[in-house]
């Protein structure tokens, strides 16, 4: 409590003293609040320890000028967490110690679990199964909703699809072109070195054509889109969960599968094959430019040689992959977005999981495509 003409506040101090009848006493004075203790807590704690070895000593705290819970706790801990028998307090300071007396017992530690690793493994497997079930459920719901939409096409979320198409497709043209071009140059440059040594220069067209159109173009575009649009979708749905917007849609009777998820899946399923065409085209251009400089095959002859080297069915295969990859990325991103719990950490974890899972899923799907279509579209010499 402050007074109008308060005496100067002194530093906290511990001293050996004597009571009026000559008994040993410990005297504390000065300010024992956080402002004073912040820098001196450790040394004062040691001093208090030394004085508290004698349980019979008298503690005189009446000359403390300022006290708060921090100071009281420091003194109380030095006492061994209980009050000494002989204690003198300044007026108004009693309240700090009475709060402390009721706070003593420690929180129980977590019990040791010898099966912790087994349990963790089981939990991880169950979680995977739960994710698979969740994605299947979501897919089923979307299919049911699309059936309803087929009967009432005017109620379809066409504006949302168009907006999503712009975000995931048009706005991704720049980054996919840049990455595709660089990959094309690198691939062409490295292959050219090898081909030159065996004198098989013209095969650069076959290598780049098949490699980029059939495999690299789709996978690169899908990885970029998963990182770019997949994370955005998860974060958007996650924030809508945190801010209860999803619940608001539900109580208005607007199914969020139709309004939010279906447009994203449709948009990615449309945009992905187009992005793949674009990425592959740019990558081939990069490869052709590099081949011109390394091997002397002109860009024109590269392009005219392409139809002979790469059967047209490869393009259809790449587009088909694109539809599947796009739908997969959107489905996984939406699934993780809807699972976000209303807290910030869950949002971060959900977004990371979404990107990692969709890239993995894309590569697994690509492997399945490779096995199924192993003898389609590859012309042997």
């Amino acid at each position, binding site marked *: 409590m402050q007074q109008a003409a308060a005496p100067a506040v002194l530093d906290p101090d511990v001293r050996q003293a004597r009571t009026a009848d000559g008994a040993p006493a410990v005297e504390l004075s000065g300010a024992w609040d956080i402002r004073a203790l912040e820098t001196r*807590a*450790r040394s004062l704690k040691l001093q208090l320890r030394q004085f508290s070895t004698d349980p019979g000593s008298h503690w005189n705290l009446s000359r403390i000028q300022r006290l708060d819970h921090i100071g009281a706790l420091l003194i109380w801990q030095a006492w061994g967490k209980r009050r000494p028998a002989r204690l003198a307090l300044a007026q108004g300071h009693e309240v700090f110690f009475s709060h402390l007396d009721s706070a003593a017992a*420690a929180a129980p530690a977590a019990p040791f679990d010898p099966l912790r690793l087994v349990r963790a493994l089981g939990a991880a497997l169950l979680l995977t199964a739960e994710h698979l079930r969740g994605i299947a459920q979501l897919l089923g719901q979307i299919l049911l909703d699309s059936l309803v939409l087929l009967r009432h096409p005017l109620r379809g979320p066409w504006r949302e699809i168009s907006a999503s198409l712009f975000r995931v497709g048009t706005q991704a043209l720049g980054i996919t072109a840049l990455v595709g071009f660089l990959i094309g140059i690198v691939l062409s440059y490295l292959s050219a070195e090898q081909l030159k040594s065996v004198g098989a220069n013209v095969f650069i067209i076959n290598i780049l054509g098949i490699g980029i159109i059939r495999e690299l173009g789709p996978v690169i575009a899908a990885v970029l889109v998963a990182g770019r649009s997949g994370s955005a979708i998860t974060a958007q749905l996650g924030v809508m969960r945190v801010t209860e917007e999803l619940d608001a849609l539900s109580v208005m009777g607007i199914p969020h599968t139709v309004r939010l998820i279906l447009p994203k899946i449709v948009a990615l399923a449309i945009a992905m094959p187009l992005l793949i065409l674009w990425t592959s085209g740019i990558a081939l251009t990069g490869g052709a430019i590099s081949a011109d400089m390394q091997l002397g095959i002109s860009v024109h002859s590269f392009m005219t040689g392409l139809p002979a080297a790469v059967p047209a069915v490869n393009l259809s295969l790449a587009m088909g992959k694109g539809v599947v990859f796009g739908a997969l990325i959107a489905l996984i991103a939406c699934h993780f977005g809807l699972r976000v719990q209303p*807290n910030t950490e*869950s949002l971060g974890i959900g977004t990371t999981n979404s990107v990692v899972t969709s890239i993995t899923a894309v590569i697994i799907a690509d492997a399945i495509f490779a096995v199924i279509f192993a003898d389609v579209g590859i012309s042997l010499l």
Partner: protein
Amino acid sequence: MTPVIEVAGLWTQFGDHVVHRDLNLTVMPGEVVSLVGGSGSGKTTLMRQILGLERPTRGTVKVFGIPLHGSNAQLLHKIRKRWGVLFQEGALYSALSVFDNIALPLRELRAFDEDFIRDMVLLKLDMVDIERRHAAKMPADLSGGMIKRIALARALVLEPELVFLDEPTAGLDPDRSESFVKLIRSLHETLNLTVVMVTHDLDTLVSLSDKIAVLAEQKLIVYGTLREAIAVRHPFILNFFLGERGLRALSAVAATINLNGKH
């Protein structure tokens, strides 16, 4: 005595829209001041300016006698350790448990050992009436009332001299808000806190505040006790205090306290 808060000649402008026009406000140590005003009157903006989260267009804000804008980072850091803020939604760190939320400001000081911090956190939990078994929980698992009380414990853990409360009882049921008001009052009495709060809740306002600052027409139209505030004939005050709800709240507390705001 130096005032705890001193706002002088404060202007806030967003484009052409003037929120505060030459606003002055002084809060002395130990006072409980409530900021009231219609929505859009700039209560929250004013509080954020006093907290140093936003910068006024013109004018000075001093806290503990130190100007917030233009002082060096070290001084500002000192001020920030002397105040505690209870945000409207609690603003508990959702990645940390209840215990770690309260322990965070203490750990940041790097002056105390873990044993000390544990006892201090448990003490603060006791003070806001939260059972210890909740200490390990995450904020997402708690009810709104518990989040408020834990956020108050976190605001109080560094023994602040000045406490800001943004809508302390909004979203609490009447019983909980009653006990929250009691808690704040008892803390104010034992710790001699200076309290600045923004509230719409008349019961809270009437039972806690020494002074009421009414924000309307871009400035403080009244700054004084409840009786002084009611005496002013202004549409906002007539609506707020002397409307049907206002009169009900005033008559409910008139029986227990004097209408001059002291208790």
